[in-house]
């Protein structure tokens, strides 16, 4: 890890990323919303629902990197405008994915956090482009990537002068077929040892199963993650993508009622000797 000049841990230093007032890396940040923006009513209703349950930010895709070119590709600019309206309605900062370097400045005009998806983690020209924009970046772990490869990608963004990188573990490919991916929860304490950057968990794409989302979310809190990014859809049965892994607003609400008290409880526990102090 010799080339990781900017992302490797300095003693006692922890980066806190300010997203329009929400401090990622301090407390526990919950980002929730639909896989993709489908309509204004869907986005605004979901935003209102997740806000009411205590979410700190809203997610929603306008540009979708789909496995098949024939799948719904996202609403593009229209989707960005809808997300801006959802923010105006709820005040929740917006996290949205950018997949094309030509779109980076435009997406940054509408969103508060630019997400680099798992398939684009090693898209170096895209990483450089988001590195040149001042907006915070949510860097998902590539589904076949080691922690070192992941950190090297964070390094690309940091080296362009953008210090606001949030890491996101979203599961890796293993031989297990029951889950969509395998959630590597050890990435949380491991990254604590390796870097000062905040790290959050995506329990949705890592498991791909509604029933596993709440348990893994609670486990993420216990593992010391800085937050979660979760798919919530106001009507999952009719979602245009990832229909079978989105939580309903009710399930999300139930989960949040367990999650916040657990986090407060964890905060009060004495720190383990081997773990790094929380900020």
């Amino acid at each position, binding site marked *: 890890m010799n080339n990781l000049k900017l992302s490797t841990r300095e003693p006692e230093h922890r980066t806190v990323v300010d997203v329009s007032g929400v401090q990622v890396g301090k407390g526990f940040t919950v980002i929730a919303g639909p896989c993709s923006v489908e309509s204004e009513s869907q986005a605004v209703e979901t935003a209102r629902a997740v806000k009411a349950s205590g979410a700190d930010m809203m997610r929603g895709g306008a540009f979708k990197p789909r496995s098949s070119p024939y799948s719904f590709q996202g609403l593009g*600019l229209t989707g960005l*405008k809808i997300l801006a309206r959802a923010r105006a309605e709820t005040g929740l900062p917006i996290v949205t994915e950018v997949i094309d370097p*030509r*779109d980076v*400045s*435009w997406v*940054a*005009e*509408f969103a508060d956090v630019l997400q680099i998806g798992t398939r684009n983690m090693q898209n170096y020209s895209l990483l450089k482009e988001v590195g040149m*924009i001042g907006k915070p970046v949510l860097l998902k772990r590539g589904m076949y990537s080691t922690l070192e490869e992941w950190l090297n990608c964070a390094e690309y963004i940091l080296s362009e002068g953008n210090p606001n990188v949030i890491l996101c573990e979203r599961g890796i490919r293993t031989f297990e077929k029951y889950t969509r991916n395998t959630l590597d929860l050890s990435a949380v304490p491991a990254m604590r040892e390796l870097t000062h950057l905040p790290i959050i968990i995506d329990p949705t794409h890592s498991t791909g199963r509604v029933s596993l989302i709440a348990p893994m979310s609670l486990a993420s809190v216990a593992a010391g993650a800085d937050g979660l990014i979760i798919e919530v859809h106001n009507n999952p049965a009719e979602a245009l993508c990832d229909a079978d892994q989105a939580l309903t607003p009710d399930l999300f609400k139930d989960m949040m009622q367990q999650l916040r008290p657990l986090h407060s409880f964890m905060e009060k526990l004495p720190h383990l000797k081997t773990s790094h102090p929380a900020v």
Partner: protein
Amino acid sequence: MELKDIRRNIDKIDRELLVLLQERMGLALRSAKFKETINDPRREEELLAKAERLNLDLVERSFTRRLLKSIVEESKRLQKKERQLVAFQGEHGAYSDVAARKLIPGGACIPCMEFMDVFRGVEEGHFDLGVVPVENSLEGAVTQVNDLLTTTDLKVIAEAKIRVNHCLLATDVTDYRDIRLVYSHPQALAQCRGFLMRNHLEPRPYYDTAGAAKMLARENPRSAAAIASALCAELYDLEIIKEGIEDGPSNTTRFLLLARDPYGARGEKTSIIFATPHESGRLHAVLQLFAEAGINLTRIASMPLRSDPDNYCFFLDFEGDENDAAVKPVLEKMERMTISLKRLGSYPANGTEN
């Protein structure tokens, strides 16, 4: 040319026809101010005959007559409705147009080239009302308008504060990723400098914000967009790529509604312009009158006198009607303390709205 290209061109022409019709209807309404009666069969026949003389192969003469006849009928119908004619400076969709529509919801808003045309037009009775910008929260006084206010006999009968909401507009066939050039008034371009730089867009000065939008809709130059009001998107069928692209915080322009007769009822605010002799303490003495009477001032601005560049006139807005018991004696005392005192009128106060 494929069918979809042909259809696109047809749509574009239809749009232009309608924009031109809008202009023609405006002129018809203006012409009514000069005429005794709406019906003028001689002029009508002259107009139809002139058009028929054009030798257009695909537009047959019988159709020309039918088409123009129906346009003339519609003009006459509009003229009979007696909508108030509200003059503003700029093209349709300019922020002055936005203000005029807000101030006189049922009015017919008529564009003028210059501020002078608005003032003279209302003074001479060619328009019923005029809307002019008097100050902007970022740029300060609109000097041309303030200068015209010093010499006009028109009265202020209302005000409107309009939030300037700059939008990036493009035609629907333009992919936002292809935009390179952005046309607008230099002041609008300056207010959106950060946005243009972040997105690597080249500013191109144009005479007017709405004019830039109109040009875009008509000529659709490659890789181009315009900065103008959201109203322009509706008027010229343009897509709003992004709203609120100005760099600074809220930026409002205050507009005045001008008429030949004063506001009929008690106003909440009064505007005056005055000049004091060039002696120490004179301005202070005037302002003291307001302080002692407990009258709140809402605007004070100075401007060099065109007739006497070493001296200044002062624009004062304050709360209350000029005939209020608290205000009347102050203005009477002012008459004796100033070399000139012009009462622009009292009118209802208006807060900022989008």
